[in-house]
């Protein structure tokens, strides 16, 4: 039994401590200068791309003391994001791939940004149109771009020179591409392929979308899937022609020997492939992994008919979103808007060696840009034939899966392009019809919910 006085003493100390704590916290509430709101930001980048964003985050944290951004680089971000949002523990801001937007939006994983954007004076005309469209879905704004990209043809000038081709003149049409291919083919003594000009599938990120360069698309924008449209058929017959001309097994073995894209073993750098369809980031790979005497060029990828389809490209962007259930959406948007200010956006895109998605571009940005072909990529983004790439469907994952399967069968020589595309068409239209029915059922409720936020 302690003497009463010492109990009172220790009790008194506790009361004082409690008072201090209460004062401190209420002080926090009223003077947020002492207690910044901490928001979590998840991003997919690593290495120098991540460092670029880190410096923007640092700028934001230094520019004010109400909000502090905690930036984390997360692997498998896509799935983690969905699981965290489903589990009720999402970050406040997340980077996503623009092509995933429809799935997230329609599954109620995101907070619409229309009100936030209009309050901050952000509107469509401030952006290159493709990127605003990539961030919108069903008439709502869901994201703002972080870094953009477009696809262009890149070619190995030295390989061209050695094959007797003009190193400054890339092919303009598909037919020309094939002529160049014939000149650039090299075989090993045992008959296997040593090097080629262009081989479909290296890289394989846009494998189902060749139709664009033939004037076709995968979806009519409304209800119909157009997998087997004449333009797509023409495109995939072209892909099939490779298997017919060079042999399925030979091509598979050839491609199996390719090294990592992000290494000196990238077949483009080791001279095994002389022409590729690649994005604006190619400059970074070349700078980091290619041999020092590597000469390259960039130009719009050839199309079947340049008079109609010139400057066709796929535009993509990394985008910033606010997940449903984020604890501090208002502060999250303030950060997103900061990233989208011209100065910070140009800083970010410059550091990642990309162009800026904003309509306005300071002259210094382009003049000082290390990528000698940045204008090519930028102009492609503004071209009327710039496409959004994957169709804005929630079933895009399944569509892509069906296409991948069709392609692997074509490339193995097990089926014709026509059969394969027809199969994809039938399967995907069935899925599309289901999704349309689902939208009829849940759509009205969802749209009213979105409009109220």
């Amino acid at each position, binding site marked *: 039994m302690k003497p009463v006085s010492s109990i009172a003493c220790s009790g008194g100390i506790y009361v004082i401590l409690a008072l201090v704590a209460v004062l401190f916290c209420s002080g926090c509430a009223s003077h947020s200068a002492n207690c910044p709101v901490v928001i979590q930001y998840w991003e997919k980048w690593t290495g120098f791309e991540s460092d670029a964003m880190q410096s923007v985050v640092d700028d934001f944290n230094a520019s004010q003391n109400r909000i502090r951004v905690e930036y984390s680089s997360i692997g498998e971000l896509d799935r*983690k994001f969905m699981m965290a949002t489903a589990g009720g*523990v999402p970050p406040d801001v997340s980077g996503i791939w623009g092509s995933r937007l429809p799935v997230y939006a329609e599954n109620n994983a995101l907070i619409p940004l229309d009100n936030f954007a209009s309050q901050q004076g952000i509107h469509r005309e401030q952006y290159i149109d493709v990127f605003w469209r990539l961030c919108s879905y069903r008439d709502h704004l869901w994201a703002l771009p972080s870094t953009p990209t477009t696809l262009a043809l890149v070619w190995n000038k030295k390989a061209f020179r050695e094959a007797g081709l003009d190193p400054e003149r890339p092919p303009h049409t598909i037919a020309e591409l094939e002529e160049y291919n014939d000149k650039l083919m090299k075989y090993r003594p045992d008959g296997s392929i040593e090097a080629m000009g262009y081989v479909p599938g290296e890289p394989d990120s846009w494998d189902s979308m060749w139709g664009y360069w033939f004037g076709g698309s995968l979806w009519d924008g409304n209800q119909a899937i157009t997998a087997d449209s004449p333009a797509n058929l023409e495109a995939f017959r072209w892909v099939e022609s490779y298997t017919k001309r060079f042999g399925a097994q030979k091509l598979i073995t050839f491609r199996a*020997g390719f090294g*990592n894209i*992000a290494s000196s073993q990238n077949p483009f750098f080791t001279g095994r492939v002389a022409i590729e369809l690649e994005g604006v980031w190619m400059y970074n790979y070349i700078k980091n992994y290619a041999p020092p005497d590597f000469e390259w060029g960039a130009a719009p990828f050839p199309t079947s008919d340049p008079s109609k389809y010139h400057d066709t490209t796929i535009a993509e962007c990394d985008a910033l979103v606010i997940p449903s259930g984020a604890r501090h959406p208002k502060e999250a948007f303030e950060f997103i808007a900061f990233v989208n200010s011209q100065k910070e956006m140009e800083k970010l895109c410059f550091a990642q060696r990309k162009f800026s998605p904003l309509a306005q571009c300071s002259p210094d940005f382009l003049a000082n840009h290390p990528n000698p072909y940045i204008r090519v990529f930028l102009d492609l983004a503004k071209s009327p034939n710039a496409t959004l790439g994957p169709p804005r469907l929630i079933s895009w994952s399944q569509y892509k899966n069906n296409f991948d399967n069709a392609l692997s069968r074509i490339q193995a020589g097990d089926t014709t392009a026509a059969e394969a595309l027809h199969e994809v068409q039938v399967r995907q239209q069935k899925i599309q019809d289901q999704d349309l029915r689902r939208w009829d059922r849940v759509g009205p409720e969802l749209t009213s919910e979105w409009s109220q936020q």
Partner: protein
Amino acid sequence: MTSQNILLRFLVLALLVLFSIVFLAPFLWMISTSLKPLRETMSLPLRWIPSVIQWNNYGDAIQEMRYFWRYAGNSLFLCVMNVLGTVTSSSLAAYGFSRITWRGRDKVFLLLLATMMIPFPVIMVPIYSLFKHLGWIGTFMPLWVPSFFAGAFNVFLLRQFFLTIPMDLTEAARIDGCNEFEIFWRIILPLSRPALLVVALFQFMFTWNDFLGPLIYLTDQKHFTLALGLQSFQSENGGTSWNLLMAASTMVMLPVIILFFFTQKSFIQGIATTGSKN
């Protein structure tokens, strides 16, 4: 007789050596790759010995993984908790399913077997929701608390071993007046030490290498385990640093290999003494 014996022994040895080469080759390849510079991981013709032995790959791998030692600590914590939970709960349950005869026992045991047939991805989301409601997502709790509730595999394993101990031992003890818990603690457990060691070892290995669980339940990178951390070498842009990944993998495997090497004698040879065979 003796010459036939010697011939047989020689044949057995030869077969073992042959199989060993086949089993060891990929592993040696793994180590060889871990010491190569990146360009040689993909060269033709194949080289076993790198032109430059890059010991620094190991150091680079640790650096690349950033929180390597933290991950190791997390893995260790989870392994200890899981082994504790598994051994205690599984042995208790296995005793109940094998040493006591009670009504409906074998039917309930079939239910236990049935649970092993439920594919994990199916119950993943309801379990995830459950943990979400408990507020355990993002913590370590979902990764060790369930081990205290006896996984079917371990109960099955221990039950099979407990069944090989003759019933007369326990009958005698019952006649002597021991209660079930005393029989469990004083007779069955000591006789089953090797089997328990097997359960502990397998659980340790499984938890050490488990990456699906941490992948789903952990959100903060600082909480990751070694197995999950290895994924950081598989970059999204299709650029896997093969040599660093193999170096990291070798390091991750090392503790478990050492553990197995030192315990194998006791549990394999010791399991043979389960029951009254000697």
